[in-house]
Structures are given as structure tokens and as C-alpha cells.
């Protein structure tokens, strides 16, 4: 399965020149009722958060607290009903890999480049180089159904990186994987981000994932979501899961979630 876990080397350097910031001020979002007679759903109410360029911020919260809505606002897929969203162009990576089943790994990774008008050969060359860095050498032509779950997420992450966006929105990216693969992928992502820094908003319900990966962890309240606690993870990388400081922070975050 995971033959080697490596961080990327061939990421376009121009992206790293200026990373984008994200700033949400007093944002609220309400969705109209799905059925007649049902109440409209307030997903977010008065949420504020700021992510510095190059910072990795994890947002944890119970199911249905508006985490996905938050990312869709950052990615400009939704507009807020109130407040302001100020974000550099962002790329979204979801829990489901959303790879196109008819394309091989290289063409899937190159999708954003192709959308941007990069010529096929050039896009493929860039994608193939990144896939090699991601330990997927030899799988360039494999279709998604021929890849394991961890491999598919790595292809999806390559596609997200190659979109050239300096802000990455990760929506529970590893939630669909088994526990062991998930831990491997978290370590792998930490390594990948160390070598290709990005501004990251990571949404998850896995507190450990948040603590291991992020510079700062925000705890969201149940719907309507608002930030109830902010924890700075002041632990140098690479981090060990068993680090006493991380374990203590995880306990604190869990307490905040239960509060």
C-alpha cells in the first residue's frame, strides 16, 4: 500500500512567494428550509476567524455545526448573508476524493491545470513530477478504482496543490480512510505542508488530527457555529502523537467540545 511517505519537492515555487490570508468577520449564513413547514437552518451565526498567510488552522466541532459551510464561504461557493469574507483564491479538498473515474492518476492530478488552460503535455509533466514526489510512481495511468483509498487522497491532494491556489480548504480529508491509513496520511500531509507551505483551513471532527497538523485549533459550537475556544499548538514539527504537550492539548480541546 503506502510504499513510502514522502513530501513533495517539485511544487511550483512561485506559489510560495506570497501566500494568501483568510479573514471572516461576523459571518452568518442561513439556508432556506428544505421542505415546506420546516424551519430554515442557520449554519453559522456571527463567526469570525483570521488565518495568517502560511498558517495552518484547524476547525473542530460537532457534526452539523456549519464546518463545511465555512469552507464553502472561503472558497466563494456560497455568499454570506451577513458579515464579510475576505480570502485569497482557495482550493477545496473534500472527504470524498472526487476523482474523475475515467481519468488516470496523472490526468486527475492535472485537472486544475487543464482548466487553467495549460497544454496537456505540460500539465501532465507537472502532475507526474508531483505524483512521483507523493510516492505514486508507477501508478500514473491507474484509474481511481485501481488505487487504494490513501492513494486516491494523495492524487486528490496533488490536484489541489496544482490548482496554484495559495489557500487550501481541507474538509475532513481523511475521514473516509481506515484508522491506520488515516494516521499515515496525517503524517504524510504534515511532511508535504512542511515542504510546500500553504495557508490551510482544515475542518475536521478528529481532534487528534487537528492537534497533530495545525498551528492553531478553533473549537466551534453546535449549530449555529461560532468560535468558542482557540488553542495555540506551540509544538515544533515534526510532531510525535505521544508528545505530552499534544496529549494535554487534545484533552483541553475535547473538554471545550463537550462544554
Amino acid at each position: 500500500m503506502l510504499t513510502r511517505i514522502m513530501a513533495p519537492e517539485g511544487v511550483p515555487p512561485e506559489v510560495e512567494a506570497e501566500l494568501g490570508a483568510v479573514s471572516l468577520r461576523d459571518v452568518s449564513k442561513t439556508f432556506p428550509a428544505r421542505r415546506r413547514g420546516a424551519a430554515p437552518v442557520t449554519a453559522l451565526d456571527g463567526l469570525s476567524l483570521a488565518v495568517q498567510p502560511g498558517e495552518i488552522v484547524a476547525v473542530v466541532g460537532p457534526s452539523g455545526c456549519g464546518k463545511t459551510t465555512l469552507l464553502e464561504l472561503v472558497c466563494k461557493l456560497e455568499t454570506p448573508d451577513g458579515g464579510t469574507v475576505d480570502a485569497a483564491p482557495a482550493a477545496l479538498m473534500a472527504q470524498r476524493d472526487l476523482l474523475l473515474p475515467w481519468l488516470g492518476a496523472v490526468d486527475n492530478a492535472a485537472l486544475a491545470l487543464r482548466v487553467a488552460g495549460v497544454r496537456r503535455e505540460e500539465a501532465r509533466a507537472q502532475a507526474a513530477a508531483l505524483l512521483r514526489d507523493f510516492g505514486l510512481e508507477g501508478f500514473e495511468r491507474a484509474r481511481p478504482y485501481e488505487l487504494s483509498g490513501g492513494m486516491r487522497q494523495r492524487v486528490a491532494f496533488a490536484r489541489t496543490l496544482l490548482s496554484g491556489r495559495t489557500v487550501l480548504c481541507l474538509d475532513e480529508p481523511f475521514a473516509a480512510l481506515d484508522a491506520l491509513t488515516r494516521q499515515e496520511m496525517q503524517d504524510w500531509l504534515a511532511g508535504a505542508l512542511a515542504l510546500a507551505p500553504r495557508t490551510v483551513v482544515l475542518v475536521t471532527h478528529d481532534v487528534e488530527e487537528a492537534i497533530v497538523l495545525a498551528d492553531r485549533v478553533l473549537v466551534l459550537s453546535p449549530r449555529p457555529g461560532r468560535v468558542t475556544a482557540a488553542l495555540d499548538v506551540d509544538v515544533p514539527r515534526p510532531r510525535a502523537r505521544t508528545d505530552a504537550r499534544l496529549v494535554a492539548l487534545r484533552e483541553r480541546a475535547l473538554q471545550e467540545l463537550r462544554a
Partner: protein
Amino acid sequence: MTAALLLLALLGGWEAYADLSGIETFVLPAPSAIATALFDDRVLLWSNFTVTAGEIALGMLLAIALGLACAVAMYFSPALRRALYPLLIGSQTIPIVLVAPLLVAWWGFGLAPKLAIVALVCFFPIVVPTLDALDRVDADLRKLMRTFGASRWQTFRMVEAPAALPGVLTGAKLSVAIAAIAATLAELSGSESGLGNLLLKAIPNFETPRAFAAVIILSAFAAALFGLLAFAERRLLPWANQPRGTAP
């Protein structure tokens, strides 16, 4: 294998019954008589077959082109879909047996009425699975394309059109068999050649073995077209029948 044995048994029983019961050949020809007709009339059958095969192939191409255009238009315009879908269903209830002679009266004994009938019959089974496949395209995929800054056309070309291909092929496979029936029916209503035309002449002349031979050729052609489409599906769309997430 089992199918071949069953077929052999049926043919054997048929042959025995036709030979031993003393039934007239023009009422029920024995398989051997049909085989003889297939061989003896091969030039006549072939020249008529090429006419009918052309009508089926062209008619289906026309149906696929119109069906795709219609499905895509209805996919993009809900208003058009509401307006057009009832009409499409209505078009399928038109009794072809009544329309075919009318078309011949309007357009003559040539290719046009045959193409119209084949296309009319094959059109609907292509529209429905194609439109369904388009409707099933993951909404999150469209969102993903939007975050990449894709235009509506890019999303259609890169995501929706490939995703609809299995639906198109399913529709084409459904259409093949009825296309043969439609072409024959169109020829029965007025024609100068074709396997349907041959049937029209053979039956009143008590040349029943020749008529059976014509039907066998028609079935074989439809089966071959179906096989061709199934082969194309396996080769071009190997991903379409893969359950997701089963790789090691």
C-alpha cells in the same frame, strides 16, 4: 454453452416436427429448408440486407445525434425539459404502423421515411438514459470545478459529458433491436428493396423459407450490432462498471 445446446435441441425438435408431421413448407419450413434458402438466395438476400442495414445504421446515427442534442438541451434548461418531456413521451405512443404509410405518401419510396421511422423509434430510449446519467453527475464535482475557476463549458466537456457516456451507450444498446423492427416496418409500408420488402414479396408467393431466412439475417445483424456496442462499452468505459473503493 447451455444456450447453444438449448438452441440445438429446439432446432432438432423443429426439424423433426416439420419433416414428420407432413406440414406444408409454406406454413412452417424446416430449419434445413431455411438453411437451403439462406444459401440459394444469398445474392438476393445480401443485396437487400445492405439496404436495410444502411437504414438501421443511418437511422440510429440520426437518433443518437438528435437524442444527445435533446438530452443536453433538456439538462441545461428545466423549462425546456418541462415543455418537451411530455411531448417526447407522446411521440412514443404514435402508432408507427399508421404513421409509416403516411410518411411514404409524403416522402416517397426512398430512404427518408425509413430514417424518420427508425429515428422516431430509437430516439426516446437514447434520451432517457442520457438525461438520467447527466442528472446523476455529482453536485460536488461541479463545485470542485467552480473552485478551479472552470467555465460552464469546461465543466460540461471535462466532467458532465464523459459521465453521460455510459448512459448514451445503454440507450444505443436498447435501440438496436427495435431499430431492426422499425426499419422492416418502414419497408413494409412502401419500398423498392430491403429485407422488409423481400418479406412483403415472399410471403404472398408462399416463399416462406426465404422469409425466415430474411428474418434470421435481420436478427443476426441486430445481435452483432448489440455485441459491437457492448464491446465498445467494455473497451472505452472500463471504469463505468467498477464499484468504487474496492481496490486493495
